């Protein structure tokens, strides 16, 4: 049969933003998928060169608007490295707790939207947003704003933690442990969900390594790689947690990896909360017009973001970065879409794309 070329997007309800796909189909079988990106490009790396160091976290947060705090923290730690600033011990624990909460919020949103994409399973969407709202509320009370926190300062955080932070965190962890148990009831036992994820979009171990994917996509394909384990920062070396690793690398495995990761994050939060003293001192340096000077030397920071491994590569000047280059994990994870979509049904393109957890703001930069 003749190939038919179908245009999807850039405005499409299932592409989670403005990704444009050009799909060649033979009947209902996909032969080739081309991704067209750049509809959200606004030149973050260039804009960062014209700003002082601590003006940039606001830009960094808008890269990945589902997990803003993780980019914020990664950039600020690069600045700390450039200035040779020490992070307070309590602030390290507090940052770890907030980052893991952010990871849970990000995965919950992903889970809800994936279930929504796979045939209007609105229950899981509503549950995920119900639980995410509770996490977001805690982060809001710590930082003062709801979505873009801009909470991390050199050497610590912006404000002291709320007085009841530990109690509330323990209560939230208890709540989430109960709430997360409910999801398999509507997803793992759901025939639609299983049919559309199990065996769909399988990524082999070799391909995963060759394409350079990272994060849950890589671990679902059987590679136990995580920056928190291989190059521990903060107190990740002190806490015990496992890396959930799956074998097959299909959409269902990616779901399982992220689900298990949420449980592991809860375990990390529990252990870190035990390390955090009641009277904590977490406040970092305030933002000044002319701040501390950086030493001109190349700086590289690696972090395990919710979507994979992120890298900030920075050449600092005294008061502002001379050049910044970012490795965004979803940009590299997107490259694998063409490989995964060979000879699948047309409807599965969106199931696969949803399971990769794409954020277009981070891809286009």
């Amino acid at each position, binding site marked *: 049969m003749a190939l038919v070329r179908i245009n999807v997007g850039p405005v499409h309800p299932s592409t989670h933003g403005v990704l444009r796909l050009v799909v060649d189909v033979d009947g209902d079988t996909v032969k080739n998928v081309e991704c067209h990106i750049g509809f*959200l490009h*606004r*030149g973050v790396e260039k*804009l960062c060169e014209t700003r002082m160091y601590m003006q940039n976290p606001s830009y960094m947060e808008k890269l990945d608007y589902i997990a803003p705090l993780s980019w914020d923290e990664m950039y600020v730690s690069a600045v700390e490295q450039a200035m040779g600033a020490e992070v307070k011990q309590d602030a390290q624990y507090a940052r770890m707790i907030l980052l893991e909460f952010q990871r849970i919020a990000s995965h919950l*949103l992903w889970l809800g939207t994936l279930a929504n994409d796979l045939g209007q399973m609105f229950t899981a969407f509503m549950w995920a*947003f119900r639980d995410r709202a509770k996490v977001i509320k805690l982060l809001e009370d710590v930082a003062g704003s*709801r979505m*873009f926190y801009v909470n991390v300062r050199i050497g610590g955080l912006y404000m002291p933690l709320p007085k009841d932070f530990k109690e509330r965190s323990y209560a939230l962890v208890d709540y989430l442990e109960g709430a997360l148990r409910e999801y398999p009831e509507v997803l793992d036992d759901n025939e639609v969900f299983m049919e559309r994820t199990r065996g769909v979009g399988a990524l082999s171990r070799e391909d995963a390594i060759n394409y350079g994917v990272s994060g849950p996509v890589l671990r679902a394909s059987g590679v136990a790689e995580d920056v928190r384990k291989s190059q521990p920062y903060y107190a990740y070396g002190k806490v015990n947690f496992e890396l959930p690793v799956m074998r097959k690398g299909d959409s269902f495995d990616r779901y399982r990896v992220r689900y298990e990761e949420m449980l592991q994050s809860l375990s990390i939060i529990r252990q870190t909360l035990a390390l955090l003293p009641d009277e904590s001192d977490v406040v970092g340096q305030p933002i000044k017009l002319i701040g501390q000077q950086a030493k001109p030397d190349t700086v590289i920071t690696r972090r395990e973001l919710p979507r994979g491994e992120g890298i900030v590569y920075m050449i600092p000047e005294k008061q502002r970065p001379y050049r910044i280059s970012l490795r965004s994990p979803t940009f590299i994870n997107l490259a694998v879409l063409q490989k995964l979509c060979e000879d699948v049904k047309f409807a599965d393109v969106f199931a696969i794309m949803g399971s990769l957890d794409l954020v277009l*703001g981070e891809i286009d930069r």
Partner: protein
Amino acid sequence: MSDETPPHRAGPSNAAVPGAPYTVEQFMNAEKEMTKLLGQSQKNYKVTVNAMFAKMSEISKSMPLARDTVRWARMNSLWPLQFGLACCAIELMDFGASRIDAERKGYLLFRGTPRQCDVMIVAGWVTKSMVPRVKRLYLQMSEPRYVIAFGECATAGGPWWESYNIMQGIDQVLPVDVYVCGCPPKPENLFEGLMKLQGKVGGKVAGSTERSVSENLQRHESEGV
């Protein structure tokens, strides 16, 4: 405890709701009223081609009561377009999700196709390559159509003001009815914005026919966007 009946338990009364363009009687018999009005107006209206396709707008121009009825109907069934660009789209999702649940107020039936929608909520920054697409979506919506600029980026470019690839506000391309401020605005702010739009559609706001368009509307064309 007072002996007064709470207002929501009181039966239908003939007193008009203060400020409403219709009486309670008309409200209760809305269907009958509409049929009557349409019948009357079809008699008055000189039908040229086909009575089936008599335009609502032309009927409403001829009769004040029909105009108010049409406005009332439009005001209470705003259907937004499911159209997210960037960060603000996450708050848009939260707007429809369990905490706010906008559906209880009648705003929310996010549709995937522009042809079924009245309101376009521009949530996020609009890049130059996105402008023709946004314009096309707007033109595909059926009239009357309304635009809400949601967030700083859609209002004025936001933090990307200096960027080389950004429209500094969607009002350079489309006429905007309501601006919602914030980066990103809370879902509650969108609620307020939609209520303002409701007032505007229902004719309850002074100057409700005005829509703000920036002065250099053609700028994007001269720049070859």
